[in-house]
């Protein structure tokens, strides 16, 4: 057998084997999506954007059987949703460990929009540090591949040559890019979703933009920019705390606010409902207010893919 035949056989075998851990998720009209069997007791992770408002979905198992599944929780900011199968099935795939994925590794995207497993091939294109999605979700690695995302592949796994799950593919988080949610994020978020049904995120109710600080202020605080308040929502935590138009936010809970990223990072779920010091610049002097951080409401359902 030539090396090429070996490769071809190995790829097909990897798809067939890993396919036992991939299910069909019927969570929307038109094309079903895919899901990854995440635990032996019936947890499945899938892509949030492929499930509409329903609380129960039909799932097609690798052996061809169908079962109902309850939507335990979903997090639009990381595009993850967790399902609980009423009858557990499928195989739990091995997962990649920190540091094992490398740029250039072969990567297979698996999906099961129909009865049988489907696959596309590519390589790991980029693997970077943590980043924040457009909706503010923290994602442990920026993981990009060049696999073709065939319709219904969202929610399915990206696997490596060892048959290990590298991440969950989604075409919705960044449009036009084959992005995968890394295993570390799936583990963290799915655990929170099983426990709480959602990922809590803090909410102030202000519209802000970065603004340069006056020199004396920069010298004193050690930061060159703050966040200029351009709008305050009526009845919001910020308004109740006394935040006014034209204030410049400098720090929240002791965390410096030099850019939008800092504000999103400071508004993690742990500060929700807590009185938190908010340092601001008003009329040339800095003051500290106390704000009781609210919980960010769930975004409205607008996606379809």
């Amino acid at each position: 057998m030539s090396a090429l035949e070996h490769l071809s056989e190995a790829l097909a075998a990897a798809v067939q084997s890993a396919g036992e851990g991939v299910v069909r998720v019927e969570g929307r009209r038109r094309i079903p999506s895919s899901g990854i069997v995440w635990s032996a007791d019936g947890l499945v992770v899938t892509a949030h954007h492929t499930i509409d408002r329903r609380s129960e979905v039909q799932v097609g198992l690798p052996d061809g059987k169908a079962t109902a599944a309850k939507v335990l929780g979903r997090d639009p900011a990381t595009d993850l949703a967790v399902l609980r199968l009423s009858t557990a099935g499928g195989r739990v795939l091995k997962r990649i460990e920190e540091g094992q994925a490398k740029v250039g590794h072969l990567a297979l995207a698996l999906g099961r929009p129909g009865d049988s497993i489907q696959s596309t091939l590519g390589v790991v294109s980029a693997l970077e540090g943590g980043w924040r999605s457009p909706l503010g979700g923290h994602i442990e690695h920026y993981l990009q591949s060049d696999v073709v995302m065939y319709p219904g592949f969202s929610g399915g796994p990206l696997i490596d040559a060892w048959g290990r799950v590298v991440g969950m593919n989604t075409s919705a988080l960044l449009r036009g890019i084959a992005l995968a949610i890394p295993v570390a994020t799936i583990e963290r978020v799915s655990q929170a979703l099983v426990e709480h049904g959602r990922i809590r995120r803090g909410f102030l109710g202000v519209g802000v933009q970065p603004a340069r600080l006056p020199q004396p202020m920069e010298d004193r605080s050690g930061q060159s920019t703050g966040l200029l308040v351009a709008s305050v929502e009526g009845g919001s935590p910020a308004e109740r705390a006394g935040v006014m138009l034209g204030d410049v936010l400098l720090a929240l809970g002791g965390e410096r606010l030099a850019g939008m990223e800092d504000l999103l990072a400071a508004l993690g779920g742990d500060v929700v409902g807590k009185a938190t010091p908010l340092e601001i610049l008003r009329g040339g002097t800095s003051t500290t207010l106390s704000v009781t951080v609210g919980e960010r409401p769930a975004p409205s359902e607008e996606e379809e893919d």
Partner: protein
Amino acid sequence: MDDLLEALSRDTAEVAERARESLVTVLQQGVGAGSGVLWAPGLVVTNAHVARRSRSVVTLAGGQEATARRRGRDFQHDLAVLEIDPALGSPAAIGDSGELRPGEWVYAVGNPWGVPGALTAGVVIANGGGAGTELLELDLHLRPGHSGGAVLNARGEVVGINTMMNGPDVGLAIPSAVVRRYLAQAGLGKAAFRRAA
């Protein structure tokens, strides 16, 4: 590791070379160029949308030209059969499309944008059953001129005939089993089933 990559490259080049031996260009007046596969001695398989006229000029590997007469056409499967002098060219080794599994390595050859014998590689996404179709769904790009050309497996056997794209990234091909069925039904069968060693 370097050895493996070199072996893969070498094997790919061999498949390309073999694929080109049975690949033909189908030229028709006022239609432009498509591709075809010398399926058996004297028998060229191409797409129905390529063989629009009853007569065409076929260019074989090595540049030899032959006049071809259309013997059959099936728009439902986008297949057509042309007849040429059976002494010409070397026929392809035909494989069994039924054995193809998702993830298997495949190649497409044709004359995309008029480039003769251009090779492109990808994997099988699905072998039928995808969207109620019996077509092969492939993770590779087919371009104008690929039509009627061959899809090959890692052994260099013809397992399909290029037909069209489905969306921007998915190539569709007619499985070799469907071609065989059509040839048998059209009474062009027997001679075409000679499987090369």
